[in-house]
């Protein structure tokens, strides 16, 4: 069930009404049933996996909580890790690794290529479950006794299939809180959802047409078209993913729940480290707490620190997808992190020497460079194969002279998969997005607007409501990108 569908809107309205009509003690059951129905709308049989994951983690965490024997606790934790990541490996990576070995050893490798369905959301709920069990093991939280509430924590439908990956201490207690109906929560939740729908349906889905046209026929385009498509992909993936997070957050808000902010205007980051504090915040936090810090973090010397950074981002890349392009993307960001960390002090000295420290120019330059670096890395993320990604980089420097010729420029504009009117509409929509995000400073746009006069809010939401209905992509719209993870 896609968020941007009438089915979801009807489903959500029914859940919302039923939730506030029911006594508090039954609400968890309603939300759990709704979450299972939400998940099963895609492929019913795969509910077995999520129930198995939930039950295993519930049981193992309770046993860890009851045990005082360190060896037994560790053994139980290892079982939990084995189950969570075993599921992830089998359903997400087995085919990938098998095909890799088949390519490397075509005559020797005994297993032929095969298909396996990738359960939606598996990368998210296994990580959420694993974090829970690890935190119980570490003694940070007590194991949840109520199986129903725990199941709801794992499967809560707004964040089930594409995050945010919520921490136990943030989300679980909220299921015990008695939420009264609040028109304010409903109003602000709908506003957040509207902003999410605007980003997804007006910008992400429209840019996807152009990006897919170019990236699926890389050999047919020169540098300008490839650069343009890559630039637009940066907006596509941001709007797609943050749009989903907004709709998830808005849906939860209507019910009285608070989900974390998963995106904090990452393209306004001044350096790569800041980018990863603002992009997919829940995943970055997960990798920091459960991979980077256990590896040693920044302790043990510079080389060890750099090694830990690189490994963390390499694994993060692989999390995003079973394809060498994602591994390369992760590696790119690993290198960025290492270089950024290694040169941070020197760059600071340089800025001070040139009296640029704290200046708007330095800040602007930092934002520009960070955006350029992340956009370049997106080439790997979007390309269908590693070979395609390298082909893009090889082609990027060429063909720019064609922009001086109006005929060539006209021909390029007509070949991108969107007609001129759609391109113009996309430009206007991107302008609305960029202006809104710049004007709202460090606040999310809906939060910023909530403090503005009523007429300003009305004008803004009317504008995006109109843009959604008159220019949103209602047909052949793609699924959310992160659904494939």
């Amino acid at each position, binding site marked *: 069930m896609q968020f941007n*569908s*009438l*089915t979801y809107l009807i489903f959500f309205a029914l859940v919302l009404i039923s939730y506030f009509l029911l006594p508090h003690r039954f609400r968890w059951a309603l939300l759990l049933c709704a979450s299972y129905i939400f998940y099963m709308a895609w492929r019913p049989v795969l509910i077995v996996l999520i129930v198995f994951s939930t039950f295993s983690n519930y049981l193992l965490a309770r046993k860890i909580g009851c045990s005082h024997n360190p060896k037994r606790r560790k053994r139980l934790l290892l079982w939990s890790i084995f189950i969570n990541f075993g599921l992830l490996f089998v359903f997400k990576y087995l085919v990938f690794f098998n095909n890799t070995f088949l390519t490397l050893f075509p005559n020797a490798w005994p297993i032929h290529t095969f298909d396996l369905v990738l359960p939606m959301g598996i990368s998210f709920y296994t990580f959420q479950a694993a974090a829970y069990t690890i935190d119980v093991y570490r003694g940070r939280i007590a194991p949840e006794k109520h199986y129903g509430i725990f199941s709801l924590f794992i499967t809560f439908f707004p964040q089930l299939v594409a995050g945010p990956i919520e921490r136990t201490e943030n989300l679980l207690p909220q299921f015990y809180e008695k939420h009264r109906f*609040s*028109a*304010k929560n*409903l*109003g602000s939740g*709908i506003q957040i959802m509207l902003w999410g729908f605007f980003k997804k349906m007006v910008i992400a889905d429209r840019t996807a047409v152009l990006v897919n046209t170019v990236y*699926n*026929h890389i050999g*047919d385009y020169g540098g300008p078209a490839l650069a343009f498509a890559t630039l637009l992909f940066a907006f596509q993936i941001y709007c797609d993913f943050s749009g989903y997070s907004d709709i998830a957050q808005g849906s939860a808000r209507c019910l009285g729940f608070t989900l974390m902010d998963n995106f904090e205007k990452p393209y306004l980051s001044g350096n790569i480290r800041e980018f990863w504090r603002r992009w997919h915040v829940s995943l970055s936090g997960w990798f920091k707490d459960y991979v980077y810090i256990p590896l040693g973090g920044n302790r043990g010397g510079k080389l060890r620190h750099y090694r830990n950074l690189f490994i963390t981002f390499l694994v993060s890349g692989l999390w995003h997808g079973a394809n060498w392009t994602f591994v390369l993307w992760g590696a790119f960001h690993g290198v960025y992190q290492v270089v950024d960390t290694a040169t941070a002090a020197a760059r600071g000295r340089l800025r001070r020497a040139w009296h640029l420290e704290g200046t708007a120019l330095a800040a602007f330059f930092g934002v520009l460079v960070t955006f350029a670096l992340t956009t370049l890395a997106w080439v790997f993320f979007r390309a269908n194969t590693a070979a395609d990604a390298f082909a893009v980089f090889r082609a990027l420097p060429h063909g720019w002279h064609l922009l001086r010729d*109006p*005929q060539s420029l*006209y*021909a390029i504009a*007509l*070949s991108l998969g969107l*007609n*001129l*009117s*759609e391109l*113009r*509409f996309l430009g206007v929509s991107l302008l609305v997005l960029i202006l809104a995000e710049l004007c709202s400073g460090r606040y999310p746009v809906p939060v910023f607007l909530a403090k503005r006069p*009523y007429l300003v809010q*009305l004008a803004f*939401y*009317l504008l995006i*409501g*109109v843009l959604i*209905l*008159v*220019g*949103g992509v*209602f*047909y052949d719209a793609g699924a959310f990108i992160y659904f494939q993870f």
Partner: protein
Amino acid sequence: MPVRSSTSSFRWLLRGLVFVLLLSLCVHFIGKRYEQAAAHNTINAWTAQRYQDFYALPENSLDLVFLGSSHSYCTFDPANFTDFSSFQMGTPLQHPDTSYYALQDILAHQSPKTVVLEVYWDMLDDDFELKQAASFFEVLQNDDLKKEYIRQVFPLSEKVKYKIAAIRWQSDYFAWQSSLLQKDIRQEYGVTQPAAAAGNGEEYYLALGYTFCNTVIPPDELDKTNQFKGMDGKDFSIAKSQKKYLTQIAALCADRGIRLIFVTAPIAPVSLGYIQNYGAIHDQVAALAEALNVPYLDYNQVDCGLTLENFRDDAHLNDSGVKILDKHFDQWLKEIDDGQ
């Protein structure tokens, strides 16, 4: 506190109502503008002409009717069949659900002995597609049939989208605006339409429902922009709803003693070369035809002497190709007539 909370709730409710009201008004007026754009849609203009000519025919004067998508009206020219009277009733992107209702409308005016339904796989794997229904509705005079179509065929979400003019006519509006923009740019900067977009021939509605075109496939569609690159027949399956309507078409024809024939029009040879496992597509359609006891001819598996020069693009014949194929089809019809 309760008073404040109810005042606050009332304020939010009022704000919500104001928002919905203003949004509805804006979208309504914009939708009207979008609707005007549909009149500039040349494809629809030909469909309108086709239906106008059809409704003007004497009642019960047709022996054979062609149905289907552009693969039908770019393939079968009734003028090429001289032994019987026929008419081309294909409409853009026509799916079997629309074919079923189109056939009902046809049978209200005509009593053909044969219906030739072009079955193109791309029209079979959607459960529903609004654009093709909308272009059919614009020409259908029978309002009751239109309402029944909406009631029976449209999923709920599509009914909602259909009612909102801004969604329904969005792509027509953007296409029309784009053509105006292109004209302005050409005038302002002295640029010309790129060869691929300009085409190398002409296209117009001819007669008896047939659309004439003498364009030859542009070089780009041999490779660069060929829509069939990467396609794998193993990924194809006939949607349940379309299967249902094909079955209903067969039942309707059987009920009226009409011979139904399925035909798949040819795509360009170069296009066929890009499709992996085309056999998987053919087999599914053939199996369905067999189950429905309907003769089936797939021109992607028959060599009737077509070459690349007989195609206007990667998926449609031009008039030279139509003449070749129709001659072959005419002969095939005679053979199955003799066989019966």
